[in-house]
């Protein structure tokens, strides 16, 4: 039983918050290119397994942080949820139904906020045009209460904290500050009244003192509009500040997922612990730091994919526990170690007296 199923089943099923998006065993691969002559000789490019069997669910009104090093697949995952990335396997369900072939209605419900507001906004469009474009693409000329387009645009801007909205209608992106631009991007997402927002590193390009305001805005939108938000981030401090649940990704898999307090304060997976140790002000410079570069998704190790860098294996503790062989050879799936808190680690299973299940 996957962690996702475990959460939906159970006796308290009816009081559990409703699942908005469910991802089942999602896989995305990228085919590497080869040179022309190598291609003639029949050489194939290496395959990069960017997302390699991810399952989780998103509950209505929650903020979930998806964290990990670069190359762990977190952005690919976010793009796949958006329907921007063709998938090679697995399923995405929205409100209990498989995504239809025509993604347009779905894309209205699930909106993305990208990392770099300057690169996202068309420099030659006014703010009004930028916001109204989404409405026009979806053929919306009147709001649910028969409001005209202008009123819908004004409402989105003002929800994103750009007030009075009329002052921004005729301005161009270059006239705004970084924080204001990111608000425009958020307003562009809000104008379609989505249910879910996927925010890919929404504040990493902003000045430190401006970040808090943008995060406050996302929290407020969640409370006021009951939005569901996925935040893709490499910053666990940010996850601590805003997320209800945190999922840690490593080499295309979720290796730990659960309530933010559990994952960040009582981490079960050695990789989560390593990430927490390098958060600067934790005094991490005097603690062990994982050696090596971020792992390469074209060469995923057998067994637990973290084992070549895992302190439990490297220190010999895995051998003492008699799990080292399994760490090196047997792939494993996420399993609940506490209610709602799942990890994929033989050492954690041993501590909790659990039997490992093979990766599905």
């Amino acid at each position, binding site marked *: 039983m996957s962690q996702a199923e475990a959460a939906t089943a159970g006796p308290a099923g009816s009081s559990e918050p409703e699942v908005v998006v469910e991802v089942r065993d999602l896989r995305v691969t990228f085919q590497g290119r080869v040179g022309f002559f190598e291609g003639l000789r029949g050489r194939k490019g290496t395959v990069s397994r960017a997302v390699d069997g991810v399952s989780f669910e998103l509950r209505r009104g929650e903020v979930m942080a998806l964290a990990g090093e670069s190359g762990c697949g977190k952005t690919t995952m976010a793009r796949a949820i958006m329907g921007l990335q063709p998938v090679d396997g697995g399923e995405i369900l929205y409100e209990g139904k498989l995504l239809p072939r025509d993604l347009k209605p779905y894309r209205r419900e699930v909106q993305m906020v990208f990392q770099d507001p300057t690169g996202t906004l068309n420099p030659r469009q006014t703010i009004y045009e930028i916001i109204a474009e989404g409405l026009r693409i979806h053929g919306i000329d009147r709001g649910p209460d028969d409001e005209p387009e202008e009123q819908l645009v004004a409402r989105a801007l003002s929800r994103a904290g750009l007030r009075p909205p009329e002052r921004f209608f005729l301005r161009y992106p270059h006239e705004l500050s970084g924080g204001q631009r990111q608000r425009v991007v958020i307003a562009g997402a809000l104008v379609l009244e989505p249910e879910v927002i996927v925010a890919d590193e929404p504040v990493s390009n902003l000045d430190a003192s401006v*970040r*808090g305001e943008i995060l406050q805005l996302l929290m407020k939108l969640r409370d006021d509009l009951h939005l569901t938000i996925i935040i893709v981030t490499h910053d666990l401090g940010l996850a601590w500040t805003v997320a209800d649940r945190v999922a840690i990704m490593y080499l295309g898999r979720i290796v730990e997922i659960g309530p933010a307090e559990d994952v960040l304060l009582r981490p079960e997976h050695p990789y989560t612990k390593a990430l927490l140790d390098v958060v600067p002000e934790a005094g991490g410079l005097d603690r062990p730091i*994982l050696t090596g570069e971020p792992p390469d998704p074209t060469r995923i190790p057998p067994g637990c994919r973290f084992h070549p860098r895992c302190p439990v294996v490297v220190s010999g503790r895995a051998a003492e526990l008699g799990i080292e062989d399994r760490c090196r050879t047997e792939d494993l799936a996420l399993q609940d170690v506490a209610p709602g808190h799942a990890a994929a680690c033989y050492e954690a299973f041993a501590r909790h007296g659990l039997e490992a299940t093979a990766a599905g």
Partner: protein
Amino acid sequence: MNDVLRLDDVHITYHTSTGGVPAVRGVDMTVRKGEVVGLAGESGCGKSTIAGAILRLLPSKTKIEGTITLDGENVLEMKPGRLRAVRWTGASIIFQGAMHALNPVKRVGDQIAEAIVVHQQSAEKEARVRVGSLLEQVGLPSRRMRDYPHELSGGQKQRVMIAMALACSPSLVIADEPTTALDVMVQAQVLRLMKELQRELGLSMIFITHDLSVLVETSDRLAIMYAGKIVEEGPADKVFHSPQHPYTEALAAAFPEIGDDRFRGKPLGLGGDPPDPADVPSGCSFHPRCPKAFEDCPTIEPDLYPAGEGRRAACLLVPAAKERAGAHP
């Protein structure tokens, strides 16, 4: 003399088609031998401009006033020949974005050797030996000197940049956002390396970044800049954990400690944006965004007042500021 670097009342004005833009507006700063000073602030606050001014790397029409004394010599009065000698040997700089600072068509070893040959007039052969030991010092096998930059990862390139900065044993190393482009794990590795080298070689350093949590790990003292001025300075740990200036407080809050309940579910932020250097607010330049501003703030420009042991803060709410205001009503 124990000061490696001294800045006295430095003003730096960029020349633009629409007139001068004051990027740095009166900064005093010292770096003692073996000390690491962290310079923090947001984009446009003038922190990288100061780094550029120390090595005279700013555009030629930029106006620099005040004095910058490096090893007892005023950098601003140096002749071009002397200046070239001082760069790399007197002070060197590790730039942000190591990815783009290396020449892509030259082997990294040759790039490091070039600095040694040019500045220390040593023979190619000696330089090569030195390059090998430098690379090993920064944790790369010496055979990697034959690699081209594209053969190295981001973290390895940044290590090469560090080796290059150390090549001529300078008295001061300036690190300008040395880890911002790196991944979290690699950032920690590079920071640890820099800290070890600093201790081992007794380097004097200026460490520039917007990330206060990185600075508190690496620096002895911290100087916080806002709109071209230092608004708070003091021992790194004290400034980070008990800020005296509301701006420092806000900056520190952007890097919350995991497990600290004050931040859980409550991102703290400032309203507004960092000011445009061409249009700095009157009085205390921070007052339009300051949650503690009162009626004097828009009109009185605060000095850096003493604020506890070895600390100074430019805020009218610091007790010393109130005393002074009381003495001269």
